[in-house]
């Protein structure tokens, strides 16, 4: 059975979607069969990193949840479309088994699902079915920030949970709550990923300090970098700039995921 990995943060703006897209791409580059599901139904964004827009993304999770299409029909094969793109990073995904299950970015679709709600059993079954249908080794779930029912469901079904935080007091408090909840939900492998650490910090010292405070392993500490800002979610950064310190940190996290048998 494949592994489910939730990438979550208590607050927005931590780099959750960017980290999910990079980790999933790095794992797919190693020859694994990988899916990414965007459960951030109210503010979807990960499709941008793969160059998709409203027209090109095809069917969406919203349509699946309304029973209009099957989950297989929602799968967008990134590897199949990556060969002829301009972006250096994304081009490396050509031929790789990487599938995106996007949420709709149409205003009417977003407001409709928030207004009508949806069948949570169908969301869970969809995630289990997509793993079987595409024979996935890993399914990455990009979640909505904060603690809500979808987040708790994602955490409950995950083998691995990666909580992203910035070295910021608000993130510290919120992450502490989320770590407690994740431990109550008995997640097998829980890691923190510290993002946007200032370059003047001693990253090893920061890692040790956070591990001590949260009693949880820190998978990596990633530096705050203008290069990432300049990338503006236009490409998969770690594939485009593999020697960048941010990318090396991300590769370390990917290796941690791959090492879990």
């Amino acid at each position, binding site marked *: 059975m494949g592994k489910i990995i939730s990438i979550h943060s208590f607050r927005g703006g931590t780099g959750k979607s960017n980290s999910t897209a990079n980790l999933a791409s790095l794992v797919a580059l190693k020859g694994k069969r990988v899916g990414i599901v965007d459960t951030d139904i109210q503010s979807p964004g990960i499709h941008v990193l793969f160059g998709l827009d409203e027209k090109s993304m095809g069917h969406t999770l919203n349509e699946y949840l309304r029973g209009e299409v099957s989950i297989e029909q929602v799968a967008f094969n990134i590897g199949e479309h990556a060969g002829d793109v301009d972006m250096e990073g994304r081009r490396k995904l050509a031929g790789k088994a990487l599938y995106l299950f996007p949420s709709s970015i149409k205003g009417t679709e977003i407001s409709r699902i928030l*207004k009508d709600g949806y069948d949570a059993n169908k969301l869970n079954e969809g995630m289990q079915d997509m793993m079987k249908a595409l024979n996935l080794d890993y399914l990455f779930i990009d979640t909505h920030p904060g603690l809500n029912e979808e987040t708790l469901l994602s955490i409950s079904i995950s083998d691995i949970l990666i909580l992203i935080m910035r070295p910021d007091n608000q993130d510290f408090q919120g992450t502490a709550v989320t770590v407690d909840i994740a431990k109550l*939900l008995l997640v097998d492998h829980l890691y923190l990923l510290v993002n946007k650490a200032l370059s003047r910090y001693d990253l090893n010292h920061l890692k040790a300090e956070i591990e001590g405070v949260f009693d949880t392993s820190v998978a990596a500490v990633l530096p705050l970098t203008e290069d990432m800002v300049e990338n503006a979610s236009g490409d998969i950064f770690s594939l485009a700039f593999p020697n960048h310190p941010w990318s090396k940190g991300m590769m370390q996290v990917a290796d941690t995921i791959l090492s879990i048998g």
Partner: protein
Amino acid sequence: MSLFDKLQGELDDRNSEGGISPVDLLDLPESLRRIMRHMLRAVTMPRKDIVAVVASWPEKDRFSEEELDKALKSLVHQGWLIEIGEGDLLGYRVNLRRKKGSENSIWGTIGSRIDERIELNKRAIQNKPEGEEPPKEE
């Protein structure tokens, strides 16, 4: 699936107030939380597989088949589990509560306003003389 079946399914879903919310999982004893996690992943789990999971735990955490059945029955009674099949084919699935919408919240209002705007634009396009632009957004 016919249009009627689809509509009926949707109405059944909406009328069903039962089911477990992921928040409720937090209140369960650890052993049941562990079983529920397995069931969520399996979607439908035969009773014999649940028994095997419990048997694989360290001795201090294990409980008897009788206690397990009592716990499963209680979860079925609460509407948190659905019993499927019988005898050797008996199995269970988690019954997650429907994620409620927010009909009267800002999303309901935004949705209605977007629908109204789309309708207005459609009508304006249908009625406009050749070459004229639809009305501008407020």
